[in-house]
C-alpha cells in the first residue's frame, strides 16, 4: 500500500528558516533507514508558499493568486511517498521521524489511490491506460 506523508508548514518553514545542521543530519539518517527498509519512493521539501501560487478554475476563467497563503498549519512544507504493508506500519515509521520543525509540528498520512481500489467502477480500457501511463513515468 502506498502513502503520502506530508509535513505541515509552520511559521518557521514559511519564513524560509533553514534547518539546523542537527536536523539535517537526523533527517538524512532517517531517510537512509527509509531507503534501506525499501519504503522510500520519493520525497521533497517544498519552498515557502510565498514562492508559490494557486490557480482557481471557474468555467473558462483561470485566476492566479500569489502566495503566501494564510492558513500556515494547513500548508504542506514537505512530503514523502512510501510503500508500506499497512497504515499501522506507516504510522510506526512516522513516530520515528525526527522532529521536522524547531517547535511543535504535524505530519499527515494519507493512503494513495491504486487503480485496483476502484474495481469494476473503472473500465478495463481506463485501467490499462492508467497502467501504461504509470510505466511511462517509471512509477509502477
Amino acid at each position, binding site marked *: 500500500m502506498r502513502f*503520502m506523508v*506530508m509535513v505541515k508548514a509552520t511559521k518557521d518553514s514559511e519564513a524560509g528558516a*533553514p*534547518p539546523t545542521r542537527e536536523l*539535517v543530519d537526523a533527517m*538524512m539518517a532517517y*531517510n*537512509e533507514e527509509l*531507503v534501506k527498509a*525499501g519504503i*522510500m519512493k*520519493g520525497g*521533497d*521539501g*517544498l*519552498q515557502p*508558499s510565498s*514562492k*508559490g*501560487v*494557486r*490557480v*482557481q*478554475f*471557474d*468555467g473558462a476563467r483561470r485566476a492566479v493568486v500569489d502566495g503566501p497563503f494564510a*492558513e500556515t498549519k*494547513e*500548508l*504542506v512544507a514537505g*512530503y514523502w*511517498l512510501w510503500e508500506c504493508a499497512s*497504515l499501522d506500519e506507516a*504510522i510506526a515509521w*512516522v*513516530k520515528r*521521524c525526527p*522532529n*521536522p*520543525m524547531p517547535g*511543535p*509540528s*504535524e*505530519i*499527515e*498520512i*494519507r*493512503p*494513495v*489511490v491504486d487503480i485496483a*481500489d*476502484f474495481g469494476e467502477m*473503472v473500465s478495463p480500457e*481506463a485501467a490499462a*491506460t*492508467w497502467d501504461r*501511463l504509470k510505466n*511511462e*513515468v*517509471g512509477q509502477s
Partner: protein
Amino acid sequence: MRVMVLVKASKDSEAGIMPSEDLLTRMGAYNEELVKAGVMLAGEGLHPSSKGIRMRFSGSERAITDGPFAETKELVCGFWLWQVKSFEEAVEWLKRAPFEDGAEIELRRVFEMEDFGEAMTPELREQEERLQAQAAKLAGKPA
C-alpha cells in the same frame, strides 16, 4: 526545476465520490500530454481524509488524530510532480488542466540541492546523491 502541484479537496472527493467517466477521460488525455512533454514525474490521487491520520509532534510527544479533517478546501486530494523549465511554464500547464468549477490547485517550488547554498556541504551533497541512487536502484529505476 521541479514543482509540486497540489490538488485541493472538495466535498465530493472527501465523500469518496468518483469523478465522472467524462472527467476521467479528459484527465487521462491531459496526463498523456504531460508524459509526452516530459513534464510528468509523478502523480497520485489520495483517498479521502477519513482514511488518513495526523500525528502531532511536540518535543518527544506524539499524538494521533484520526481523519476525517474539517478544513476540506485546505486538504490535499491529489498531487503531481512536474519537471519544467520555469515556474511560468508550470502555470501555463496547470491552466490547461481539466478541472471543474470551484477547483483550486496550488503550485509550489520544490527545494533542489542548489537552493541550499553553502548549507549543502560537499559531504551532505554526496550523501544525498548516494541516497537517491540507492532509492532509485531499489525502485528498479535508472538513477
